[in-house]
């Protein structure tokens, strides 16, 4: 069935280092892909989403590159900030309009 895989449950980094959170999706279809972020005691909210014209989405220093060859949509940032500590979800819309989420990655940034 439709699926989204996030391999890391927990990621801990030092402030200033690069961030990469992995996301792969079922490759049978070409879904719309999203990254949602949830800070402590807040609702999840959209961070960025894939474009149909293969442009690279960017927001708040984060970007994600869609690689159809590897069915991936990894989230990256060149330099982590303390405020980036949060729960990150990769999600996909496979065309049936429901949104399928990965298990989430908890990112902790230390000083």
């Amino acid at each position, binding site marked *: 069935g439709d699926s989204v895989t*996030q391999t890391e*449950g927990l990621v801990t980094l030092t402030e200033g280092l690069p961030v990469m959170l992995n996301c792969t999706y079922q490759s049978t279809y070409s*879904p*719309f892909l*999203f990254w*949602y972020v949830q800070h402590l*005691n*807040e*609702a*999840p*909210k*959209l961070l960025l*989403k*894939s*474009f*149909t014209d293969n442009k690279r989405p960017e927001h708040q220093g984060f970007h994600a590159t869609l690689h159809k060859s590897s069915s991936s949509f990894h989230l990256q940032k060149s330099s982590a900030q303390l405020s980036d500590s949060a729960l990150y*979800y990769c*999600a996909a*819309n496979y*065309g049936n*309009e*429901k*949104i*399928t*989420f*990965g*298990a*989430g990655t908890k990112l902790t940034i230390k000083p």
Partner: protein
Amino acid sequence: DAGVTQTPRHEVAEKGQTIILKCEPVSGHNDLFWYRQTKIQGLELLSYFRSKSLMEDGGAFKDRFKAEMLNSSFSTLKIQPTEPKDSAVYLCASRGQGAGDTEVFFGKGTRLTVV
């Protein structure tokens, strides 16, 4: 403009009780989702409504979980009877009309503890 509103924010129930969680979507949104959030499974879809019609009932959650949408601005999720394994955060989300890349807006959730 108000976002998605969920009540209550916290609920404690004894095993076997019936509980009802409430959600008000963003005004004008046609799609409404209920998710269960746990550390192990992440976000699991419980129900999906489009224009008040049930489109997806979350398969494994059918037997004790029932979501309803009596009007376009209000939805409930009933869990009957509750079990300790139901302890989780329940998130409601809504989405307006648009293409497949349309953003979903979430509420802050209801944290359910079943003892």
